[in-house]
């Protein structure tokens, strides 16, 4: 019996065997992450939501081509990234990308405040990077991909990914330093 604690690979196997309803678990698990990839490409909620829907339909229709050699989230991310790149290339009336624009600025301030401070600091640090590197950090922190997997998907050199991730980790460390120092002071 499939439940939400099953791994992605177990659920995919069940879907291929005819238990299509289980695919909803995959959708619920990854919809925000795929939406985030869409936000990186299109910078607006509507297009990112359409992107997410297209990706899940594409994933469903190509499930039999998933061989299970790499984690499912790697295969999903690769499809999403390639689809995003192709869609952007084919869109000729797209406005020029504004690197100063804060992606997701159409999200309400309250929504952003709900996230932890560390998440906020990390996001503001990521958003200051050039566009093509932002997605690498999303893949590392939110999709739990390794440097080699990110390099395989994006083509960005491993050392570049490493240096950007290192910068982000130092931000996390600095944010946490205050908390740890307080704990020691109390002791």
């Amino acid at each position, binding site marked *: 019996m499939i439940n939400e604690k099953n791994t992605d690979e177990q659920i995919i196997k069940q*879907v*291929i*065997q*005819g238990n*299509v*309803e289980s*695919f*909803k678990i995959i*959708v*619920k698990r990854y*919809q*925000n*992450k795929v*939406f*985030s990839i869409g*936000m*990186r490409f299109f910078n607006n*909620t509507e297009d*990112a*939501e359409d992107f*997410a*829907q297209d990706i*899940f*339909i594409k994933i*469903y*229709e190509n*499930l*039999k081509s998933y061989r299970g050699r790499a984690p499912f989230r790697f295969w999903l991310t690769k499809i999403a990234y390639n689809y995003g790149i192709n869609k952007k290339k084919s869109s000729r009336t797209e406005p020029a990308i504004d690197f100063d624009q804060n*992606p*997701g600025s159409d*999200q309400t301030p309250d*929504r952003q405040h709900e*996230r932890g401070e*560390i*998440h906020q600091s*990390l*996001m503001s640090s*990521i958003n200051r990077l050039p566009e093509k590197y932002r997605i690498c950090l*999303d893949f590392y*922190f*939110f*999709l*739990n991909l*390794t*440097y*080699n997997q990110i390099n395989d998907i994006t083509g960005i050199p491993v050392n570049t990914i*490493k240096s950007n991730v*290192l910068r982000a*980790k*130092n931000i*996390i*460390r600095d944010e*946490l*330093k205050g*908390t*740890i120092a307080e*704990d*020691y002071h109390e002791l």
Partner: protein
Amino acid sequence: MNCKKNMEKFLNYDKEFAIPWTIRLHMFFCPQCRDEINSILYEITSLQETSAYEMDVDLSDSIMQKVYKSNVNYEHTMSNLKWLCSGSLILSSIVLISFSDSFIYLKKHFGGHLEIPISIVLSLIFCGYLVLFIGSHLEGLKENVDYYLKKINLF
């Protein structure tokens, strides 16, 4: 290894591999580094449960509606290996049955003509197997036949 170097090494390592034993050893002896590293690891792990952006709506229902309308249907199927094994079992039974003790015993009682009805029964079983195999692989077989017919027509 001092704390600064240890922390630099920790921040640089790739999660594809386990935390290096030198870092683990330092963590064992240094409570401050241990707490700091564990906090960072906890924070990074909890980020995996979130995403850069969150949608205000749940798209799962609309996506599933499109999935149900999709032309792609997945059905419960038997793997090709299982088909091969069961087919081999049936064929080997047909070949080996005449050497079994039970068959020799029955032959002694009913005479040498027993082989014919048993062969008919086993052949019917094998025909049933072939019908099931062809029925469940009809689409794939059609595509293969079309492909080879096109190749023959080209010649």
